């Protein structure tokens, strides 16, 4: 069973974190990623550039509309993701709670849809 862990956090809050805390966070991410790779849970994962670099695309009546920024203004923004393999939701949650950003923002756990 695969789950996508969507990492949401407030970009504004994270900016105020300070150099030392940011460094620790990066080190925590390195360690966490290594752990889940070794345990066989890691399928993929990336960090994203901030939402100010985002472009939103819509096609309406055959016409493409391109706008600056994310689709919706929210308190927390998508900052990255992991695609993991877990035996069930409980295991996925125990992995999600170890994502370093869980202490600052929130981790949305979404099962991957399988088409049969």
């Amino acid at each position: 069973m695969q789950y996508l862990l969507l990492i949401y956090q407030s970009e504004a809050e994270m900016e105020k974190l300070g150099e030392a805390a940011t460094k620790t966070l990066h080190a925590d991410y390195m360690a966490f990623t290594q752990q889940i790779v070794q345990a066989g849970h890691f399928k993929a994962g990336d960090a994203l550039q901030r939402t100010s670099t985002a472009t939103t695309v819509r096609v309406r009546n055959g016409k493409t509309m391109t706008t600056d920024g994310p689709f919706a203004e929210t308190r927390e923004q998508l900052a990255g993701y992991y695609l993991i393999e877990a035996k069930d939701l409980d295991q996925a949650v125990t992995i999600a709670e170890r994502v370093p950003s869980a202490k600052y923002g929130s981790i949305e756990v979404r099962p991957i849809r399988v088409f049969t």
Partner: protein
Amino acid sequence: MSAGAIEPVFRSEAGRVLATLIRLVGDFELAEEGLQDAFAAALEQWPVAGVPASPRAWLVNVGRHKAIDRLRRQILRRAKRGELEAEAAVAAQVSPGDETGDGFGDDMLRLIFSCCHPALAPEAQVALTLRAVCGLPTPAVARAFLVGEETMAQRLVRAKQKIRHAKIPYATPEPDRLDERIDGVLAVIYLVFTEGYASTSGAELMREELAIEAIRLARLLDRLLPDRPAVRGLLALMLLNHARRRARATPAGDIVLLEDQDRGLWDRQEIAEGLLLVDEVLRRPGRPSSYAVQAAIAALHARAPRHDATDWPQIVGLYEVLLRIHPTPVVELNHAVAVSMVDGPARALDLLDALAARGALSSYHLLPAVRADVLRRLGRRDEARAAYRAALALAKLDPERRLLERRLEELG
């Protein structure tokens, strides 16, 4: 045996049979369908052939075969559509497992923990528990929560879909998670009870069926997890409250406050059981659960032969324990009531005003209602009237409104 005599067997076995079927067929909805098929078969066969020696084992066995038939038909349909899948899929999905004996307790626990999984919305947890564990039909669950049958059916379908799609495990939690998960289950049971014991809206003060289901669930959980004091504490608390049910309202449905209740109407058998349980739980080492402390408070009320013989100082002490281990605005409110009985209404008014100043319980009618009572006792009639009116504006239940109106009339 008539259909009418078979119905109670279904009601008492539904939860256990479903719990085992889910383990055997590995899918909540398929197991439910198998259970319905088994009930239908029983209604046909039992009146003729007699009730089997073990109705539960019979229902599990038939339900399992019916579920396998359904699974087989599903796979055949898919195969016909060109999505060829091996018949072996059936065998893979249906584990042999034991169908009788000791497995039932474990299956029941698995079912309870799945239904009360924190990944499900609280209202879905409650609905699923009543439907699957208690075996209440969907219309009854809908009635219990004053929503339409269609809405409740949708809620149940969505919950079961989440169980399947997100793969909420059908399992007892890992030991390091067990306590917090038990807390979640107890919260569901207590929600069912309070909804039954003191409905949050509507015309009736109590919905007896829900309170009884909650007690039944707690008894079951206490049997399955005898070493968890919080479970027994909750069971004791519910029994001691439920014991007062006949004295809490007049036949016309008006509220009778604790001080005016005919204590002869209290259910002595439930009180005796509740007292035994609470004494046992409080003797255990370690910090008591908040349920046990609340039960200890209810026990002091139950032990008092008359209202003016209540041991209020000890009740104040217990509320202070509760304020340390489980501080909530409602506990603060109850603490203030107890303080008014020991230190007088002026001291209680200070506590109530502090609570209101923090903006806590701003939509809870009992805060202005208690404040009004305290003001009345202090002889501050105008302020008391204003507070009763504020309470009246917030009260949702008809009997509560009638009580507040009576109080206003008494003030003149």
